[in-house]
């Protein structure tokens, strides 16, 4: 009789064990970060971009500065196209700073002459939301500070930063004669993620 009772108890026990009593779920959590950054797409470097613009003869036949409109056209046409670059920034608040320096031969010019040509540089940045933000800097003034683009830079294919220049002038007015020589200037553009 005891045997019967023990068998019965064992059977009942086996039937009572729930098949799902074991752990059947596990979790793996993965977290990572992407830091804010900007990079150049294409070209030889991911952090700097460079283009060279040759404006050709800067003076007219009478020795004074060529018409500003003519030089502005040469600037965007020199090399076949306007200087443009593709910059990507993964932050929502990138900023642009521009520091343009005058065209000059260096050294001092004699009285009645000049070896300096000023201009205004324009850096236009395409926004992801559409439109562009343009940051201007005249060589007669200080460099701009970091100027917010006003949204993410366009991530669409193609160039999204364009550089132009206009308003070419000489100190002392349009009648000032330009010193002969090679003139060099620079437009430095700094784009930061925020």
């Amino acid at each position, binding site marked *: 009789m005891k045997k019967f009772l023990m068998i019965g108890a064992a059977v009942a026990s086996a039937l009572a064990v729930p098949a799902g009593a074991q752990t059947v779920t596990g979790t793996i959590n993965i977290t*990572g970060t*992407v830091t804010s950054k900007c990079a150049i797409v294409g070209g030889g470097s991911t952090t700097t971009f460079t283009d060279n613009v040759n404006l050709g003869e800067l003076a007219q036949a009478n020795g004074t500065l060529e018409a500003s409109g003519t030089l502005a056209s040469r600037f965007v046409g020199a090399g076949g196209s306007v200087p443009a670059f593709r910059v990507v920034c993964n932050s929502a608040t990138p900023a642009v700073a521009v520091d343009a320096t005058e065209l000059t031969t260096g050294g001092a010019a004699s009285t009645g002459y000049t070896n300096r040509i000023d201009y205004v540089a324009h850096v236009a940045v395409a926004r992801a939301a559409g439109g562009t933000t343009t940051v201007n800097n005249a060589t007669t003034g200080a460099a701009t500070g970091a100027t917010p683009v006003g949204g993410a830079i366009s991530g669409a294919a193609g160039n999204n930063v364009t550089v132009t220049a206009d308003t070419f002038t000489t100190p002392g007015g349009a009648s000032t004669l330009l010193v002969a020589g090679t003139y060099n200037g620079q437009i430095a553009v700094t784009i930061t993620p925020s």
Partner: protein
Amino acid sequence: MRMRARWLGMVAALAAAAPCAAQTAYYGGSPDRLNLTVEVRASIAARCGFAPANEPGANYFEPDFETQGFDRVAAFKLDCTSASRVGVVSSNGGLASGSAAGPGYTALAPYDVQLTLSGNATSATATCGAKDLVPASNACAPTYLPASGSNFSGPASTTKGLRLAGPATIGSDSTIRVKANAYAGPPILTAGTYSDTLTVTISPAT
């Protein structure tokens, strides 16, 4: 006398329960015992789960994963007395930041999941992209690792998930590997914190 009465009572009860030809046993008589056959039928359901303290579980933090990539392996143990299936669900289908991304940008980074099951005498492996491990997906196209096996998106059921053909009770290590190379793009990953959760489930298999 009391013992005989109890014995006869029990015999009578058994005889009443059995429709076969009645036979009586008497204490000290002949026959003095009966041979009774009691058929006991029972079933024990297949045991299937993760071995205690060896469930899939890990927390990985991967700073700058878009430049560094990552490659992590989490081990766990199965405890199944029969064939089993293991399914994995990615909560985001990749590493997601949850922020909006404009044209040319993305807030979802791909990574791959490689599941390897080890049983007593069998094993199984498959590699899919996290993007494939969402409910209702049947695709299996990893981004970085070579493709192998078929979709093992969960939750696991008797017919869904990577199938291990035999029992797994000896404590062999099964693994789940997550891997991404440096992110190449395009589109561009927006800055921020990215995350995903893989939920691993197991079920007996048919």
